[in-house]
């Protein structure tokens, strides 16, 4: 098989206070895949995400993005390749206008002038927010801010898009709009979420992380219908939701 976009091998990490969050995690994500990373609160999902672009450094094991190891020497290129969309858009949107915010990443990559403007507008077009380029981010609705946060990362043309709880705090319409946008993108996606129906809708494959171990890696349908596995790792489907009752998935 080709080089995986994301290659996590035997990753272990303990926080400075001694709390061990990850115990030898192996995850591989290949080009064009959309993978859901599931797990109860405190399973180590966010810790894993922060390793993907070198914010945290592995205690043991390794992370590589398209063959490039995550190391100090090429952090800039790693951060271009891995685009992380954080949970709270207010943390991600810190400039005066939407345009400046989306330009922040590519400008750090050295883009200027017309090329920069084009990159910004392309990214905003992809999330349907081009008309809002001149607005300050704090005047947008939460759903709009989440979409701009996705655009800030898309503008860096990442090889893998990592989303932390993309559907949290969204109303059903914004949630569906974001799903449409994510499906329309031609990019590899790793999506951290508690929203199991959303995972099933968007990601053919799911990895379950529990107490710092990968305990399942298979099709999302198989994971969600494995009652014993779900129970053992505090995963619960919302009331009335049955994956078996859905005969075809969009996209």
């Amino acid at each position, binding site marked *: 098989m080709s080089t995986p976009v994301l290659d996590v091998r035997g990753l272990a990490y303990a926080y400075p206070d001694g709390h061990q969050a990850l115990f030898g995690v192996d995850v591989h994500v290949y080009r064009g895949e959309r993978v859901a990373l599931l797990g109860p609160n405190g399973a180590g999902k966010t810790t894993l995400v*922060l390793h993907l*672009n070198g*914010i945290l450094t592995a205690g043991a094991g390794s992370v590589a993005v398209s063959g490039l190891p995550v190391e100090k020497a090429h952090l*800039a290129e790693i*951060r*271009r390749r*891995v*685009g*992380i969309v*954080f949970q*709270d858009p*207010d*943390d*991600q949107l*810190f*400039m*005066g*206008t939407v345009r*400046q915010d989306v*330009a*922040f*990443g590519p*400008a*750090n*990559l050295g883009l200027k002038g017309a090329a920069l403007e084009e990159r910004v507008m392309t990214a905003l077009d992809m999330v349907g927010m081009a008309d809002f380029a001149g607005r300050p981010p*704090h*005047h947008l609705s939460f759903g709009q801010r989440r979409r701009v946060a996705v655009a*800030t*990362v898309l503008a*860096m043309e990442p090889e893998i898009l990592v989303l932390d709880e993309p559907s949290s705090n969204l109303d059903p319409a914004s949630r569906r709009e974001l799903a449409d946008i994510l499906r329309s993108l031609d990019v590899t996606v790793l999506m951290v979420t508690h929203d199991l129906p959303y995972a099933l809708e968007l990601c053919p494959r799911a990895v379950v992380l529990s107490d710092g171990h990968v305990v399942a890696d298979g099709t999302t349908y198989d994971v969600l219908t494995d009652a014993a596995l779900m129970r053992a790792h505090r995963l619960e489907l919302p009331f009335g939701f049955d994956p078996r009752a859905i005969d075809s998935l969009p996209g």
Partner: protein
Amino acid sequence: MGAGHGHRLFFHGHSAVHRAPAHLKVLVLVGFMLTVVATPRDWYPAFAGYLLAVVAVVLLARVPLLYVVRRMVIEVPFVVFAVLVPFIATGPRTDVLGLTVSEPGLLAAWGLLAKGTIGVMASLTLAATTEPTDVLVGLRRLRLPDLIVQIMGFMIRYLDVVTADLGRMMVSMRSRGMNPRSPRSWPTLARTLGALFIRSYERGERVHLAMLSRGYTGQLP
């Protein structure tokens, strides 16, 4: 952008004062303030002249005078201090309205009050006629160190977020029966401010992470 959408100190308008380049306005404000502060406090007519000048600019900008005056409540703590000075200061005493007060204290209080009021009014005029982001652009054009401009930019961006945070905390405390006006709740308020500080600090760390994730190296584009 309508007025309702701008910063709360900004008054939407299209006057010559609104259109003037921000760095020019900042320079004029700083120069004006230095002059006011350097004026000896017993040159009374000069202060009248300064006040007239500020009022003239406000009128020229077509900002309602009341709009500026109402926002001058920020000066109240200084006014209280200035009013106390004549009673506390030493030196020869004199009688004003049946009260015996210190003469040099009275003069000091006048100086503080006059210079402070003119300064606050002039600053509010700048704020009312210039969008915060334009002030930042102006400061950068004046070659203010980039780091300081960045910090001010973040302050403007997150002021609303932190205020909203505090608002939500107050609502939740009120919902549990706290009365913010009663002195009995002051210890709780103090702890709330502590919690708000920690929250904002942690948000700062998250923002920094998000910036690093997009290749930040110390320069804002």
